[in-house]
């Protein structure tokens, strides 16, 4: 039994889901639903979740990404980038980053709350985000491909502020819609019914986007008894051989 994911399976799935899915808007709670709370008084968002309505988009500027308004130079950069698929960190099994991890791969993620941390474990490439929710500020002199995430609660909504991204363009989909190191991401996670998290993300990027871009999707709770599996990607990956870099060298 081979459960480890391979890139080819991922790309195929990505194309299928992307083609079929139209994004559903996250719904605000109009039904008077009240989220269950943990002993620390905060809403219980824990569980295994998966983006069902909206998958990775094979084309730039489609679906939830249609709201991204680029500066002219950034638009040119995007089109050039789309001809260099090996530049996509997802294709290299590195990370889909933020908010790509939530919007991009059709794999589940596990949310765990530990009092002073919210941990989000993504099945894709066994990526993980450790999010302090203790009021601490973003650090100075720190950069990471996933940025630095700090969370706080606004009522029953978990708000995660993400800055400190590494220099470079990180792809949001296979069409090379991208964000760079100047982006500021604010995510809002709200339980809208027992089995749905409404996820809203707003991104400002003064070197890429003319104005802030907001996307909304729903995450659906996975059946009881399912668990997060090991998303080996680089491990044993053979498809990377098919990618060739700018100087003609094969990537491994």
């Amino acid at each position: 039994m081979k459960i480890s994911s391979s890139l080819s399976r991922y790309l195929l799935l990505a194309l299928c889901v992307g083609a079929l899915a139209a994004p559903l808007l996250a719904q605000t709670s109009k039904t008077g639903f009240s989220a269950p709370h943990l002993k620390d008084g905060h809403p219980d968002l824990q569980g295994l979740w998966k983006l069902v309505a909206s998958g990775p988009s094979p084309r730039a500027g489609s679906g939830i990404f249609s709201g991204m308004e680029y500066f002219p130079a950034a638009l040119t950069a995007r089109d050039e980038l789309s001809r260099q698929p090996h530049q996509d960190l997802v294709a290299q099994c590195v990370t889909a980053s933020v908010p790509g991890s939530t919007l991009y791969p059709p794999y589940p993620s596990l949310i765990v709350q530990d009092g002073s941390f919210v941990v989000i474990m993504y099945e894709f490439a066994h990526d993980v985000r450790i999010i302090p929710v203790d009021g601490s500020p973003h650090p100075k002199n720190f950069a990471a491909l996933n940025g630095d995430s700090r969370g706080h609660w606004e009522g029953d909504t978990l708000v995660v502020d993400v800055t400190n991204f590494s220099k470079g363009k990180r792809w949001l989909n296979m069409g090379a819609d991208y964000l760079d190191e100047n982006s500021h991401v604010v995510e809002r996670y709200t339980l809208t019914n027992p089995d749905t998290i409404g996820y809203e993300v707003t991104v400002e990027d003064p070197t890429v986007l003319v104005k802030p871009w907001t996307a909304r999707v729903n995450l659906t709770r996975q059946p009881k008894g399912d668990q997060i599996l090991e998303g080996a990607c680089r491990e044993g990956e053979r498809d990377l051989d098919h990618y060739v870099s700018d100087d003609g060298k094969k990537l491994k």
Partner: protein
Amino acid sequence: MTSAILRLVWSVFATALLMLLIDPIQAPAQTEKTIAAGLTPDGEPDLRGIWEVHGTANWNIEGHPAGKGVAASKSVIVDPLDGKIPYQPSALEKRNAMTLSADPETKCYMAGVPRATYTPGPFQIFQSAGMVIIVYQDLHTYRYIPTTPRPQIDGADFWMGSSRGHWEKDTLVVDSISFNDQTWLDRVGNFHSNELHVIERYTLKGPKTLQYVARIEDPKVFTKPWSMRLIAERHSEPGFRVMEDECIRNARGVLEHTARSAK
């Protein structure tokens, strides 16, 4: 009558001797102090924090002389008492023929169990009701360990295995199966097969000291189960964090861990 008493004394003595021989880890442990762990809000022993094992086990878990950039060290194997892995003869030949450059860690593959524990870099333990999460800095590897009864995922070929935990007093006991045969136990090529079965025991020995004991069983490779014991120390430096560690090809085309190059 006298012979009955003698028999009784002898059987008690023999049992004690046998226990010492069978379980040399448990025996010294009883004379060491174990501090009661604090409790999490859910009432479970609290092992939360950022921990790191120092030492040279990632290079060689058996005793070894000093090498290039590596200090000499005693074996971390506490059972058997000679500190040597009880290999089957053909497996020992295979181990002795391993080359350092073939270490799967150099290809940026997940380290496996127990190696992830002593791979350079810290790991962070998170707890919520009925589960423990361990995030290792090395290649952002994580393990989801339910501590409520839940069947194992059997027959899979995971790098980190399928893990199920339970509490024995203040000790977290983690039972793991469903491994592939691709990970090594250290850089010099100590290895296992896909029949690897690991039982790990995490015990707080002091506010900043976590004892880690791993019992390794693999009927394809070893003649009998064996155990290693390591100590992890708590990080309490202000602002200390598990860093992002991605594996990216550098300008020279060599795969590089971002957490190891970022200094």
